[in-house]
């Protein structure tokens, strides 16, 4: 008996008698062949009291440098936004935290209504009529959109912008190999997807045309131009997919208004914690015609026998538990609790707040880019509009510069080339801004970055030992 089980010796005796076996072992011996029974105990550390497990996990946490311990300009998909306290409270409520997927709607109206509200909010943000109740996270949501396109038009090729998040491209490649799709990557020009190359790459073989908004380099793409180019060359059957950051959609035009067919994205920026990369959620919204090809759960409105408004999981004939090998996706457990955080966050921000927040971030991002690009040895990697993140090119070793800034308590952002592996990204630094990064912190970064670049330019050789271990 552990602290989580309740079978006392007396219980055990009575239970074995009822079962009609003489021992617990007998139950296993009669079912599991000797040859595959583990003859020994597992080689794992012994169990510990709650207090000691907590101390161990606290000690591990203490060996991480969280956004509490440094001023962090890291982004590249996950952002250090403030999560309002009421979200913790709601996500910790047993009624939301501990149920399974709502298979019994009569006793799951809370969770189902949250899904319905979430779908409404995502639909509003994206300007697309149809949203599911969540997918795993950003990059795999793009891969799921690709699969939808394949099912929709059966074409052999994805045309993708080089501006997509590298993890998205890598994930899409993994999936596409599975469902036998070819990938064609369109390069960037001046920080955004090269319009000519994009248009050229499109034809009737194009199953999906996929780009990021804003793209990985922080640039706001001309979504409308990209969409119409794709549809023009590939026809309406071509599925235009945009990977969006939902928190920018208070400021940026809704994908649905730009001719985008499917909008997917990483939901972490909506009220979810950093959690070293997850769990968060992936949003997935589309035009009406794709409704029956959507992956994942969808909550729908209906009435009960007494005429009360209620909600159910609907259109389940798309899903694996009904359609099995013919399902539109294999997804089962998704990210319901994280989507709850998302919709509560959007309600908390509200209709005005999401615009105000977008404006604030854009203004600070603009200010930060101007300020940093003015430093000697620092230039913008592109001049495109940016709203929450931007890319710089340093005339110095990025790794060394980052180490200097970090040692001084400021993480200046991500090393672009380390993420994309692209030679042309050498010297690239990706800097993210949130409502948590004040002007004072930006100015502090400017000071440190300037010094660090100067120092690295001064003596690249000596720079190494100059850095505290």
């Amino acid at each position, binding site marked *: 008996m552990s602290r989580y089980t309740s079978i006392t010796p007396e219980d055990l005796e009575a239970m074995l008698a009822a079962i009609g076996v003489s021992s617990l072992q007998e139950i296993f011996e009669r079912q599991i062949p000797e040859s595959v029974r583990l003859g020994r105990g597992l080689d794992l550390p012994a169990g510990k009291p709650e207090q000691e497990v907590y101390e161990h996990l606290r000690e591990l946490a203490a060996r991480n440098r969280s956004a509490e311990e440094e001023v962090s300009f890291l982004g590249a998909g996950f952002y250090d936004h403030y999560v309002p306290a009421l979200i913790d409270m709601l996500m910790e409520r047993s009624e939301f935290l*501990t149920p399974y997927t709502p298979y019994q709607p009569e006793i799951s109206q809370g969770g189902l209504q949250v899904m319905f509200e979430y779908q409404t909010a995502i639909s509003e943000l994206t300007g697309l009529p149809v949203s599911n109740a969540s997918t795993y996270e950003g990059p795999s949501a793009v891969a799921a959109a690709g699969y939808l396109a394949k099912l929709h038009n059966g074409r052999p090729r994805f045309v993708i912008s080089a501006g997509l998040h590298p993890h998205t491209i890598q994930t899409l490649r993994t999936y596409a190999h599975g469902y036998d799709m070819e990938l064609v990557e369109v390069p960037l020009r001046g920080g955004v997807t090269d319009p000519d190359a994009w248009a050229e790459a499109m034809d009737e073989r194009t199953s999906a045309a996929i780009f990021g908004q804003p793209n990985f380099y922080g640039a706001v793409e001309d979504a409308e131009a990209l969409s119409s180019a794709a549809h023009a060359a590939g026809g309406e059957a071509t599925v235009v997919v945009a990977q969006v950051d939902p928190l920018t959609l208070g400021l940026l035009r809704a994908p649905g208004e730009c001719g985008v067919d499917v909008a997917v994205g990483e939901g972490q920026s909506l009220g979810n914690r950093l959690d070293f990369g997850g*769990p968060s959620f992936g949003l997935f919204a589309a035009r009406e015609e794709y409704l029956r090809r959507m992956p994942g759960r969808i909550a729908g409105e209906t009435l009960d026998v007494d005429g009360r408004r209620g909600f159910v999981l609907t259109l389940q004939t798309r899903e694996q538990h009904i359609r099995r090998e013919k399902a539109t996706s294999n997804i089962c457990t998704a990210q319901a609790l994280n989507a709850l955080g998302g919709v509560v966050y959007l*309600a908390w921000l509200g209709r005005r707040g999401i615009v105000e927040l977008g404006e604030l971030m854009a*203004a600070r991002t603009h200010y930060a880019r101007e300020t940093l690009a003015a430093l000697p040895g620092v230039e913008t990697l592109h001049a495109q509009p940016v709203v929450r993140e931007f890319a710089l090119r340093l005339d110095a070793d990025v790794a060394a510069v980052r180490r200097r800034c970090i040692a001084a308590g400021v993480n200046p952002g991500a090393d672009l080339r380390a993420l994309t592996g692209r030679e042309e990204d050498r010297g690239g630094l990706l800097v993210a801004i949130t409502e948590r990064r004040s002007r004072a912190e930006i100015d502090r970064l400017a000071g440190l970055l300037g010094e660090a670049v100067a120092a690295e330019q001064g003596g690249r050789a000596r720079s190494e030992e100059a850095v505290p271990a």
Partner: protein
Amino acid sequence: MSPIDENHLHADPGIEVHPEQHDHHHAPPRQAGAPTPLQRQGAVTIFQKGAPGRRAFVCPELDVPALPAEALPARLRRAEPPRLPEISEPEIVRHYVGISKRNFDLDSGFYPLGSCTMKHNPRLHERAAALPGHSRLHPLQDSDGSQGALELMWNLQEALAEISGLPHVSLQPSAGSHGELAGVLLSRAYHEDRGEDRRKVLTPDTAHGTNPATVTMAGLQVVKLATNADGGIDLDDLRAKADEDVACLMLTNPNTLGVFDPNIAEIADIVHGVGATLYYDGANLNAVMGLSRPGDMGFDIVHFNLHKSFTQPHGGGGPGSGPIAVSERIAPYLPVPFVSRHEDGSFELDEGRGTVGSKTIGRLRGFQGNYGCFVRSYAYIRSLGADGLRDASETAVLNANYLLARLRELGALEQLPLAYGDLCMHEFVLSGGPMKRALQIKTLDLAKRLLDFGFHPPTVYFPLLVDEALMVEPTETETKETLDAFAEAIAAILAEAAEDPQIAQDAPYTTPVRRLDEVAAAKRPVIREALA
């Protein structure tokens, strides 16, 4: 009230329901009466609340120059703000606290949902995961700034390897089905690397829907395997279908019937004999932790459901986490990144520098996986240790067999016979067929009536090969008292139905809403609030 009704519990899904709580033994109503308080509330969404101008968010002051117009051309700007709610903080809190009460949950009552392993979720795990060092850690934090997290992941990888008996682990997949996709792609990559283009995947007809769905997504074809009289794989059918074109056999053991396939060694031989791989769907691992290991059974690839066997709370449909463990021959294809340890004892995210992952199938998602789930499951493994994990599986199997025995004692198995075998592992499947014929109530009716008795019903109509299936998984964290009360509730419903089937056919009566029109919902889908 019939005497039977006097001896078991009742409760409301929105309410605590375990049997100890009851001293009043009224039966639940046998027809719809005046609406209960919960029922007097129809659904009103947050989009129907609030008023223009209300707000919960207060924006930090603009501490930099306003964005110049030219910095973001109008063409790219949104014209109309999205129609999100305009609502104050107190209204938001009441709204979501209010609708939360329309959910049944594991902390409120027994949840024997077969195949889902709804075991107790310790709150220690939530506390640990919320520590800023874990929860505010950026996924791109440099390795010198994330050694604690990487060590945790390494320790978890090692523990899962030991539990599964397979040496190499990637924590990346986001859930079970994601792990399955990884697994089938691994199998495919393994064969392709050896110049073979195998296209078939064998899946028993008892397989969970995600298995065949995954096969299709991975570009391969499903070949169904028959189940034998004992609930295991039909070996003849297997021999017949196992050929050089088979990439993989996907199996759950114990399977979804709660049956441990005694021929597993022979099955492995047959499959390996044709050069195919063996995939283990780990959703049922809660039956065998510390007792039997997939690796020792001959499996090449395993996925775990941290949100089942390892207490990650299910959250009403996620988050989950579906790590995979593989054998040496599959290791080169392992998805990246995973955590490796250097000689100096430091850890790093490994994209495949060594043999492991050297021919990786690639990434399945962004970053490292659902780290928050790793923290919880690691805390669980450290709390229980080797003995605790074995005790958990032993108790899960004990509880399932005891519940089965109680149902037998109460005569319930006459209308609800056990589909296969006599004993079971951590769960068992009953057939509602005889009940349907004898009492005119379907498994669905039984399930809905259970709601009035305050229980979450078992999984119904799965596995498909069992007529009117009822799949019961009590888990190890329930008390004997709860198991007794549940068995008595089933018996009471059967007795009630013998009197008047209508009672169950029209149930439930006491839930926030009663039976919902799912057909109408699917025919004219309304999947978002219409806004002015």
